């Protein structure tokens, strides 16, 4: 019996085609992350594709935050963290000996869970980084462009000199996104970007992500499954494995197109997690 497969395009932008036609931006091979002697993430093999939104979901402690922080070497900030295996960014080993973490972070930006604008003016929040990164030419235009891309320009254009701390939570988060975009990265990582925000701000950020996808590769960590379902093209489910010695580590259980993960996942553990019926 022949199965008829139909994929309905409702997003307007064109549902991203199956990933094989895309270039891989990150390639992880047998990646393990340790905190001291404790194995936090075990044997991750994953390709993250260009200009798609990839969501990482899973229960608490499954290592999703740890994983995303390996992508821009924020794990360096934890002195006990170490890695084995390979993590390549466009073919270069991210954690190799000659690689400068500062350079890595210029190309791979990050937006955090709780909005963390600098206690400077709105303008300076975006401009400060630019000045330091040596992008001083046409500063005003760059700031405006970044704020427009973050869908914040209209709301703040008349008060660029005001303190950023006076903005609402949703606006602050968009300012942090503008700040990250201004540095012209290739990838933007989001660590639970909307968990501190109300539903309306969350929707605004999600719409923004759809726009950003045109130019940037996005990776988001979220504990909100519905958000992953709404926003992501590809979804990776990290599960918790308990070793014989009762230690817990995160493993990549399933990685596929979001549609498949939420309508017909291959792994029982994925099904259990997304339906919420087996913890």
């Amino acid at each position: 019996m022949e199965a008829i497969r139909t994929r309905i395009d409702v997003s307007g932008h064109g549902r991203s085609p199956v990933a094989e036609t895309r270039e891989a931006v990150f390639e992880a091979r047998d990646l393990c992350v340790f905190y001291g002697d404790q194995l936090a993430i075990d044997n991750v093999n994953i390709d993250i594709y260009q200009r798609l939104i990839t969501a990482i979901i899973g229960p608490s402690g499954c290592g999703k935050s740890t994983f995303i922080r390996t992508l821009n070497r924020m794990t360096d900030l934890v002195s006990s963290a170490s890695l084995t295996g390979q993590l390549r960014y466009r073919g270069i080993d991210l954690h190799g000996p000659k690689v400068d973490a500062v350079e890595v972070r210029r190309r791979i930006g990050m937006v955090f869970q709780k909005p963390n604008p600098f206690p400077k003016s709105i303008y300076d929040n975006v401009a400060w980084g630019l000045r330091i990164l040596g992008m001083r030419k046409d500063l005003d235009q760059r700031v405006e462009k970044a704020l427009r891309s973050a869908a914040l320009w209209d709301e703040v254009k008349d008060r660029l000199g005001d303190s950023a701390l006076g903005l609402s939570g949703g606006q602050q988060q968009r300012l942090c996104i503008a700040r990250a975009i201004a540095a012209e990265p290739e990838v933007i990582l989001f660590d639970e970007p909307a968990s501190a925000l109300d539903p309306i701000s969350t929707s605004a950020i999600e719409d923004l992500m759809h726009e950003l996808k045109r130019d940037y590769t996005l990776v988001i960590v979220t504990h909100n499954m519905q958000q992953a379902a709404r926003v992501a093209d590809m979804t990776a489910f990290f599960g918790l494995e308990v070793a014989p010695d009762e230690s817990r580590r995160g493993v990549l259980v399933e990685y596929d197109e979001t549609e498949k993960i939420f309508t017909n996942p291959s792994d029982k553990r994925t099904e259990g997690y997304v339906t919420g019926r087996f913890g």
Partner: protein
Amino acid sequence: MRELYGTELEQLEGLLLEEGQLVDRAIRSALNALARDDLELADELVAFDDEIDRRYLTIEQGIPSLLARQTPVAGDLRLVLAILYINLHLERIADYCVTIAKLTKLSHDLPRDAAALEALEEMGERCREMLATGLEDFHARDVRHPRALVDMDRPIDRANRKLVDRFVAFGTDEPQREWAMRMMLVSRCLERIGDHAVDIGEQTSYLVRGEFEEFTDASHPTPRPAE
């Protein structure tokens, strides 16, 4: 976890299977009324349809509520959709039974042909078999016999064609011809009931496998090559 949600899903499925049993009784009653030319039974059947409609409506209303409140995904989502569609198919089957009952009443005083009635009885029993198989497989999440329903549909097609041949040879007697026409409609109803039973089987396949597959039915007489 999500106990309430799990219970709701079970209740919906239970209600659906109950409805299935009622529909099976309706088919049997329709066939009996036709075979015995029993007008009272025909009327009872029309009233009985209300029982079926009650369950149909409960499920119809329960599904959007469940979708909105519990946001089912993956297997649960497919189950809810399967229940939705099977519910519709059962309701259509029940409607066809009512139609058969009405046709029975309309053809009450007309001359009857035993051979034709036998053919219709056989078609009806096949339908009941298909419905029972379809619902059992659904409940057991069993897709080991995907061709079974399609195979069962074939005798119904054959019986239908035999009926056509028989009626074409009926000749010019008007009351006889009127009866034949009404019986063709009954045959048409039974054929459609068979198609709905096949559709129920398709739902089970989607539920278990996660992919839509269209089995052959009346609109696609040529079987597609097996995978």
